[in-house]
């Protein structure tokens, strides 16, 4: 079944093949059943005819005479006496009349043979026979063995006097025969039996023509079924599926343009459901794409804004070095490397007046935009308050109160804040929960200065921040940092730690702040390797040179 436009696919081919197999099986089955039924009914018919002939033959007999002949035939065969009697009867008008009547009956009923006999053991003693072949025709008193196929039937009907109920089929040179065995009962005993051999000449040719007819009909039905199936497959299945597949390809190739052809499939079956689903999916994809485009644009916009925010944040930290090129009494350097776009770490330094410099390093708890906003406020508050004058504890107390107000996010900030008198090197620091600073005395090594810290800024209202006094001599260096340094983590979860940090600082204790920070940063990078940076890394180095002009130096 070929169609110019729509080739039958593998699925359709398999369906048709399956159909052909089913049709073949049904054909074979129906032929088998048909032939069986036909044979059974034919057998019954011919069997009935044979018994009708036997009954007709029985009616021809004078039973008394038949009994007499039967007894003579038995007597003759068992004791050898009565040969003259048999010869006489054979020639008698009566006996010849019977033979003629039976021969007429055989011819009239179109059967092969009718014979009458008596049974004794394995033998038949013939009384009368109408076999059309003279050589095979028995006469009164003749004997023969019982043929196997009728043996049981003959003996059982002889003993019981009841006609045999089964079919006695027998293959002869002229075709299949069916034989009726019918006992003749007289005065309570079986005196003889009549056998009628009826040919079933028409049977086999009838079966052949039956099979032929069935085959022709089945072939016609099969061809019609093929045509119908192919037509149904092509029009109801393959055509719409091709349309769906074509429309799907069209959708992909034409930048998600939805064609209306899918809506035209109105099969009212699963194909239509499929077409509708594909259409729904295409519409869904388009909606999703347009949504995604919107979201992506939005994300890009937010990303761009975050970048601007990060830039603004970075610009808020003093970033020009040397920061105070005309101040020879000290040198300082600071850096902040954020982990995300915007972070919570910050450093700051500013001259409060000609003789005082403020140094700040801080770390807001948390990350991202909230931490960054908090950081901006904290940095501004600390610097502004410090510029108004006041000790570090006063500045942090102020920042603490201000930041604590309405701090729903419960953020806080650890701060190390020191004010150093430039002319003398005397300093006052307040440490609100921040890391220990590292100090290096002239010609010595960097060491952590440990003392008890105050709580972080914005943790609780009304905190009193402790102050810690110290003094820098010319040549001393100060290094402060955030936990991004000590908690820089290697891929096997080992932290950089304060020991490695101090070791790194002591590689060249006398270095200027910039190269000091560079060394630490390089060591962190080497330690961490490919592991991602989780936290902001912020450091501030301050080296005190003292004032040569100062009388106190």
């Amino acid at each position, binding site marked *: 079944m070929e169609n110019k436009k729509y080739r039958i696919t593998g699925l359709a081919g398999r369906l048709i093949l399956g159909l052909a197999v089913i049709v073949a099986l049904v054909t074979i089955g129906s032929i088998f059943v048909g032939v069986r039924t036909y044979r059974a009914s034919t057998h019954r018919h011919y069997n009935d005819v044979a018994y009708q002939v036997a009954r007709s033959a029985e009616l021809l007999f004078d039973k008394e005479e038949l009994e007499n002949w039967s007894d003579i035939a038995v007597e003759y065969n068992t004791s050898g006496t009565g040969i003259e009697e048999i010869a006489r009867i054979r020639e008698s008008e009566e006996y010849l009349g019977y033979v003629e009547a039976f021969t007429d009956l055989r011819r009239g009923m179109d059967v092969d043979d009718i014979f009458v006999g008596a049974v004794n053991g394995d033998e038949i003693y013939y009384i009368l026979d109408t076999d059309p072949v003279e050589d095979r025709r028995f006469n009164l008193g003749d004997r023969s063995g019982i043929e196997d196929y009728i043996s049981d039937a003959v003996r059982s009907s002889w003993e019981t006097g009841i006609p045999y109920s089964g079919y006695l089929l027998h293959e002869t040179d002229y075709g299949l025969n069916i034989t009726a065995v019918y006992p003749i009962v007289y005065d309570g005993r079986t005196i003889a039996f009549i056998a009628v051999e009826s040919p079933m000449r028409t049977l086999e040719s009838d079966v052949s023509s039956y099979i032929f007819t069935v085959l022709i009909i089945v072939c016609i039905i099969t061809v019609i079924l093929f045509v119908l199936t192919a037509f149904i497959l092509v029009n109801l299945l393959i055509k719409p599926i091709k349309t769906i597949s074509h429309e799907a390809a069209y959708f992909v190739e034409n930048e998600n343009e939805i064609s209306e052809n899918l809506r035209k499939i109105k099969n009212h079956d699963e194909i239509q459901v499929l077409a509708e689903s594909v259409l729904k999916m295409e519409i869904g994809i388009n909606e999703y794409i347009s949504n995604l485009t919107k979201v992506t644009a939005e994300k890009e916009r937010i990303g761009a804004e975050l970048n601007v925010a990060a830039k603004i944040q970075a610009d808020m930290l003093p970033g020009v070095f040397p920061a105070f090129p005309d101040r020879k009494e000290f040198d300082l350097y600071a850096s902040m490397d954020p982990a995300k776009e915007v972070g919570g770490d910050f450093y700051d330094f500013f001259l409060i007046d000609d003789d005082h410099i403020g140094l700040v390093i801080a*770390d807001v*708890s*948390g990350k991202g935009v909230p931490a960054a906003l908090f950081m901006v406020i904290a940095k501004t508050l600390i610097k502004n308050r410090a510029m108004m004058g006041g000790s570090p504890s006063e500045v942090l107390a102020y920042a603490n109160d201000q930041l604590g107000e309405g701090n729903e996010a*419960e*953020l*806080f900030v*650890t701060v190390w804040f020191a004010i150093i008198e430039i002319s003398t090197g005397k300093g006052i620091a307040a*440490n*609100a*929960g*921040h*890391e*220990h600073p590292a100090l290096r005395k002239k010609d010595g090594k960097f060491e952590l200065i*440990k003392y*008890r*810290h*105050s*709580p*972080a800024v914005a*943790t*609780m209202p009304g*905190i009193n921040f402790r102050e810690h006094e110290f003094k820098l001599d010319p040549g001393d260096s100060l290094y402060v940092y955030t*936990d991004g340094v000590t*908690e820089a983590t290697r891929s096997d979860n080992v932290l950089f730690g304060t020991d490695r940090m101090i070791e790194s600082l002591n590689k060249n204790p006398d270095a200027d702040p910039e190269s000091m920070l560079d060394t630490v940063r390089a060591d962190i990078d080497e330690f961490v390797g490919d592991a991602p940076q*989780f*936290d902001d890394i912020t450091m501030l180095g301050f080296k005190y040179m003292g004032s040569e002009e100062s009388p106190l130096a």
Partner: protein
Amino acid sequence: MTINKTQDGSKLEIALEGRLDTMTTPSLEEEIKNSIEGITELVFDLKDLAYVSSAGLRVLLSAQKTMNKQGTMTIRNANEEVLEIFEVTGFIDILNIEE
């Protein structure tokens, strides 16, 4: 980190085991948020806690602030390392730490 909660009426004891850092803190924050309502006595058992980061401190601080309004909060069995963190960060002043 593992969090073991034992509640007895309005008393809640939370035992922490492992490291309370940026990665593990959110789960503790969630646990506290879910169970702090109606609690008048909150106890943190830090016997098996090895480390507290600033993120962990923030959650403890937040719990302390909540408990200031509805009852008491106590931290006990902190090891030396964790105690030092409390000390350095000044949290020793604002948390009720049993030594």
